[in-house]
C-alpha cells in the first residue's frame, strides 16, 4: 500500500467513525420520537417495532390531561428572561474585566467559575427559604433570577473571551473620540462582539431550557417549565413509555427548532467580525 492509499484509508476510517458517533448520539432521540407515535402496547413490545401505523393518540391525550402551552410558555419566559438578566449583568462586568485587566482578573473569573462546581442541592435550603420569605415560590420571577445567577459565571467567562478579541486600539480610538463608557459598550463593543453575544445567549437559553432541578423543586403548577412537565409524567404505577416519549418530544422540539434556526444567524454573526 502506498502512503497515499494509506492516507485515503485513514480518512475513510475517520469519516466512518464520525458517522457512527453521530448515529450513537442521535439514536436515542430518534427512538424517543418514534416511540411517541406508538400505542402504549407497541412501545413495550419485544423485539421493538420499527414499522407500525403511527398514531397521534399520545399527543392528544397529553393535551387533554394538561396544558402543554402553559408549560412551554413558562419555559420560554424563564429561559429568555434568565438569559437576558444574565447578559445585562455579564456585559458590563465582562467589559470591565476585558479592558481593565488587572493581575487579579483571572482569579476573579476562576472564583466565579468555581461556584459552578458547587452542587446545586448544596444551596437548596437557603434558596427555598428565601423564595418563601419573599413570597416568590412557584413564580416565574424566581426562576428567572435563579437561572440568571446559575448561568452568570459561564456567560461572563465566554463574553470576557469574546471581548478580549476586540483590538484595544479601537476602544482607544473611541476614547479619543470622546465616547462615554455606556456609548462605548453600546456603539462599539456590542456591535463588534455581536456574534459572540448571540452564541453566548443561545447557549444560556439552552442551559436554562434544559434545567430541571430548580424548576422541579421551586415550582408546583403556575411557574412549572417543560422539564417539570416531563417529570410530572412519572406515574406511580410505572412509566407509560409512549406518553413519556411524546412529552419529551414536545419538551425538546421548541429548543431544537430554535437552535437550528438561530444557527444560521450565529454563523453569520461569527464571520461578520473581520476586525482587521
Amino acid at each position: 500500500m502506498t502512503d497515499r492509499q494509506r492516507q485515503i484509508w485513514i480518512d475513510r476510517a475517520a469519516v466512518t467513525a464520525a458517522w457512527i458517533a453521530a448515529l450513537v448520539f442521535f439514536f436515542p432521540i430518534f427512538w424517543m420520537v418514534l416511540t411517541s407515535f406508538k400505542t402504549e402496547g407497541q412501545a413495550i413490545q419485544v423485539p421493538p417495532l420499527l414499522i407500525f401505523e403511527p398514531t397521534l393518540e399520545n399527543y392528544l391525550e397529553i393535551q387533554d390531561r394538561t396544558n402543554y402551552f402553559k408549560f412551554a410558555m413558562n419555559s420560554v419566559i424563564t429561559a429568555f428572561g434568565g438569559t437576558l438578566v444574565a447578559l445585562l449583568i455579564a456585559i458590563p462586568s465582562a467589559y470591565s474585566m476585558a479592558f481593565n485587566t488587572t493581575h487579579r482578573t483571572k482569579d476573579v473569573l476562576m472564583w466565579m467559575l468555581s461556584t459552578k462546581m458547587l452542587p446545586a442541592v448544596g444551596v437548596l435550603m437557603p434558596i427555598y427559604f428565601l423564595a418563601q420569605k419573599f413570597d416568590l415560590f412557584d413564580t416565574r420571577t424566581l426562576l428567572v433570577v435563579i437561572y440568571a445567577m446559575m448561568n452568570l459565571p459561564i456567560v461572563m467567562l465566554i463574553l470576557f473571551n469574546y471581548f478580549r478579541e476586540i483590538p484595544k486600539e479601537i476602544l482607544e480610538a473611541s476614547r479619543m473620540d470622546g465616547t462615554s463608557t455606556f456609548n462605548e459598550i453600546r456603539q462599539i463593543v456590542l456591535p463588534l462582539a455581536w456574534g459572540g453575544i448571540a452564541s453566548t445567549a443561545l447557549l444560556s437559553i439552552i442551559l436554562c431550557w434544559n434545567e430541571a432541578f430548580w424548576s422541579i423543586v421551586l415550582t408546583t403548577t403556575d411557574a412549572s417549565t417543560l422539564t417539570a412537565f416531563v417529570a410530572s409524567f412519572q406515574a406511580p404505577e410505572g412509566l407509560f413509555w409512549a406518553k413519556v416519549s411524546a412529552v419529551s418530544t414536545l419538551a425538546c422540539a421548541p429548543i431544537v427548532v430554535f437552535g437550528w434556526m438561530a444557527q444560521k444567524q450565529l454563523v453569520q454573526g461569527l464571520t461578520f467580525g473581520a476586525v482587521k
Partner: protein
Amino acid sequence: MAGLTIRNLVKRYGEVQVMHGVDLDIEDGEFVVFVGPSGCGKSTLLRMIAGLEDISGGTVAIGDREVNEVAPSKRGVAMVFQTYALYPHMTVYKNMAFGLQQAKTPQDEIDRRVRSAAEVLQITDYLERSPRNLSGGQRQRVAIGRAIVRDPEVFLFDEPLSNLDASLRVQTRLEIARLHERLKSTMIYVTHDQVEAMTLADKIVVLRDGRIEQVGSPIELYERPANKFVAQFIGSPKMNFFIAADVPPASRPDGFADSDTLGIRPEHLVRCDEASARVAGKLELVEQLGEYALAHLITPEGSEFIAKMETPPTEAHGEMLYFTAVPERMHVFSADGLSKTA
C-alpha cells in the same frame, strides 16, 4: 492651535519606571518626530500626551492648559493609530463622523466637515464603503480623516506608516508632509524609522530608555549629534566609530584623548594615499547600489567600517584602502559616549 509643554514627566508601571523625567517644549505649528529604538518610550510618551496612559509624575500642558487630569477627547488632540483602529462595523463616513456625533455637533456641521476632510484626502468616493473593503493606504487616509474632522490643536501619529508597503509609505509620508503644510497644526509623530524622522520633522526628539538623548532639527542631529547613540541612530548607513589605535597620532583631531572614539559618517570618508590617511582598512565586501557603492572594511585593529563611494573601488578583496575626512566632519566622543565636538 497650540504648543506643548512637558515638564519632568514620569511614567511607572508598578515598580518599574519607564519614563525618567522628560522635559520638552513643542512650538505651535511644529512638526515634531519622536524617534528611537523599540522600547525607548516614544509611544508611551505620545500616549501620555493623548491621555491614553496615566501620568505618574510631572505635567503635560497643551497651550496654557495643564491636561494631566483632562479626558483624551477634551485635550484638543486627535490620534492616528498604527493599526488604523477604524470601527469595522461603520462606514467610512460614520467612522469620520463618530467623534463629532459624540460631541453633539449639529448634523449639517458634521456633514460639512466630513466632506471637506474627505475632499482633502481624496476619499470622497469611499465614504459609504466599510473599512474592510478598503486597501491599507485607503484605511490610513480614513484614519487621518477621522483626526482632521475633529479640527484638533495637536495631531498625534503613532507609527502611522509601519503597516504600509514601501512604495505606499513614501507616498503617504509626502501626503502627511503636505497636510502639515496645509493645516499648519502642531503634529507629533512617532516612528522608529530615521528616514521618516529626517524627512518630516521640524524637530526630532531622540529617545532611549525613557530619556531624551537629544532634541534638534534633523540637520543639527546629523551634523552635531550630542552623543554616540544619536550619532549612530541618525543617518544611514550608520556613523563609523574608530578607537584611538585605529587612527595614527598625527591624523587625530585636536583634543582627541586615547580613551576617545572618533566618529566619521560613511559619506564623509574620502580616499587618499597612505601618508595622509586618517584611517585605513582592509576591503572585505563591496555593495554596488548603482548610484553609489558601499565598501565594507575592517581596520588592522578590528574595527569594522563602511565607506560610501561614488565609484566602487577597483582593489581586490583584502587590500588596504586609505581614507581621510575634513575636520568639520569628524566627531569625537569621550569614553562616556558624549560628544566633545557638538
